[in-house]
């Protein structure tokens, strides 16, 4: 492998890598704003300029490909002077908004101005200000904070396949906006907030909810569709505040769709059933696990029942059910369900050109691998059903059946159910799911179960032992 020298350290690199990436390998940080590994290189911000031996001028590290024998100095006098000037230039118009800016704490501009900037401003003229138009339901814009890196424009054009962000005017007056002030159209708008290095584009959903330094990250996988995008659940004190994409070049690169990003809201839904409940006098009434398990067994005993398994359950849960069902409900017919119209893995196809898949549940391919059959239409002559799902799979029409639900349901969804045993969402359990590529990925527990919700394994164990546990 070819080698180059960065700040006196020898590094091996693969041909084609730029200096920012090569420097990262030996722990040398080159500050940058406009570069993003998932976007084209434009070398606009000039922050990353470094000194390269035998070259008369500073070179931008993002657009300079490392070559064999290259000697690079990232902290030479000229490079440092350039960083300082670029920072000063970016900050002349930048508002002192950090106290009210949601980006503070994860802001490149804030971090770099500590590291490379000057604590004083020489600028006495009036600062540029903009009036911001609404950008639709996902993103809130604040153009005063923009540093004109054009990452957002490139994201739309190159990744999302829609040129909706443009730069109007020039120079100091440059303004980033949607064409004619239209709301954003893409289903991936949340990524604008992720890639904006400053607080110009932020999530409306997360606005003022939490300061980012309080959040803890749990690395997990999105359950929004069969792709299984890697993401972090960010939470504090058992409350989820947001989800952000986690880099995985083979699955989702650096991105996440809005549906998956905001899917977590059902975990804290006020309408979610979090206590065992049994229907009495036409109404679901809260009880204990003991009483509701008895009611569940009675509802299915001697009936002609179908067992419907949501493909939002994990492999571990599916395997457990594969052992449990033949023993305890031997006459029932078992199907998996998830997305209307998607019965088997052959039906799952890309839903757009970016990430989304047609199967709106994460583990369809895992269930097929274990040999479960998909639900086309319910067999005739049924009089009972057992529905087990995570909270994402779309429930089939179950009118007229005496239904027992295990898992996550809202009161509205359980309107026809006779018993509900509350289970866990993807954020409250560990497990494995298989995506459309056949890749096994792990979901991890981020928060503790809400209310009296229990893991499926616990509920089945109580069922099998004929007990109600102690709850």
């Amino acid at each position, binding site marked *: 492998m070819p080698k180059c020298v960065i700040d006196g350290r020898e590094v091996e690199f693969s041909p084609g890598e730029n200096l920012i990436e090569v420097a990262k390998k030996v722990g040398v940080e080159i500050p940058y704003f406009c570069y993003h590994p998932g976007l084209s290189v434009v070398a606009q911000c000039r922050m990353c300029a470094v000194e390269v031996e035998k070259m008369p001028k500073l070179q931008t590290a993002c657009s300079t490909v490392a070559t064999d024998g290259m000697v690079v100095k990232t902290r030479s006098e000229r490079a440092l002077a350039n960083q300082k000037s670029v920072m000063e230039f970016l900050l002349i118009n930048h508002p002192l908004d950090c106290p*009210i800016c949601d980006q503070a704490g994860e802001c490149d501009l804030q971090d770099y101005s500590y590291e490379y900037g000057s604590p004083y401003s020489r600028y006495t003229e009036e600062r540029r200000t903009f009036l911001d138009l609404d950008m639709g339901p996902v993103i809130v814009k604040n153009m005063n904070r923009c540093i004109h890196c054009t990452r957002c424009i490139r994201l739309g054009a190159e990744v999302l396949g829609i040129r909706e962000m443009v730069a109007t005017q020039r120079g100091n007056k440059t303004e980033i906006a949607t064409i004619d002030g239209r709301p954003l159209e893409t289903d991936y708008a949340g990524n604008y907030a992720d890639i904006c290095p400053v607080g110009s584009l932020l999530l409306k959903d997360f606005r*003022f909810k939490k*300061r980012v330094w309080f959040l803890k990250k749990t690395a997990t996988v999105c359950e929004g569709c069969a792709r299984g995008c890697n993401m972090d659940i960010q939470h504090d004190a058992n409350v989820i505040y947001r989800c952000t994409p986690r880099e995985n070049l083979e699955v989702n690169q650096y991105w996440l769709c809005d549906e998956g990003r905001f899917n977590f809201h059902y975990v804290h839904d006020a309408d979610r059933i979090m206590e065992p409940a049994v229907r009495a006098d036409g109404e679901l009434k809260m009880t204990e696990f003991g009483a509701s398990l008895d009611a569940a067994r009675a509802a299915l005993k001697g009936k002609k029942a179908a067992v419907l398994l949501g493909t939002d359950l994990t492999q571990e849960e599916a395997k457990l059910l594969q052992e449990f069902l033949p023993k305890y409900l031997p006459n029932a017919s078992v199907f998996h369900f998830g997305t209307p119209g998607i019965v088997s893995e052959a039906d799952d196809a890309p839903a757009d050109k970016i990430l989304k898949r047609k199967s709106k549940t994460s583990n369809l391919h895992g269930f097929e691998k274990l040999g479960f059959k998909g639900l086309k239409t319910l067999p005739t002559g049924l009089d009972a059903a057992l529905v087990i799902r995570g909270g994402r799979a779309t429930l089939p029409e179950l009118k007229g059946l005496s239904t027992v639900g295990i898992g996550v349901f809202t009161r509205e969804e359980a309107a026809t159910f006779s018993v509900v045993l509350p289970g866990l969402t993807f954020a409250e359990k560990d497990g494995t799911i298989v995506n459309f590529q056949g890749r096994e990925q792990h979901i991890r527990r981020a928060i503790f179960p809400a209310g009296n919700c229990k893991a499926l394994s616990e509920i089945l164990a109580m069922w099998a032992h004929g007990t109600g546990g102690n709850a």
Partner: protein
Amino acid sequence: MLLKTKESLIRRMYLVDVAKGLAITIKNFFFAPKITIQYPEERRKYSDRFRGQHYIKATNGVENCTACMLCPTVCPAECIHIVAGERPDKEKYPVQFEIDILRCCFCGMCEEACPKDAIKLSTIYEMSTESRDVYDRSFLMEQRGNK
């Protein structure tokens, strides 16, 4: 071996020492400057930098606080709880601002961290109550301070 010493009778009765001690007591009792103050009739003037009861400073009736959350971040007792919101005249403001004063250790770090000169520790030190109070926003917004 025990040493036997022979002291005079006067010395053995400690009369001289008792008299000397009494003289010091009398001198201090009647003539020394008094340190005790007659609280609550009389009150001590503390330094302006005394760290007492909190308040949120307001300018023209609007709270200075912008809900940046730096004070709850720095507070070692974790006793400040803020919920931020938005209203037409102010982009970010504290909808709720609570100080669990029983947990507070009066370190004054919140005042020091505040970029908006909003949270202040006044010189008020009479804060005892009969219930376990939490200072809420409206209580903190009373401008009882002098800083």
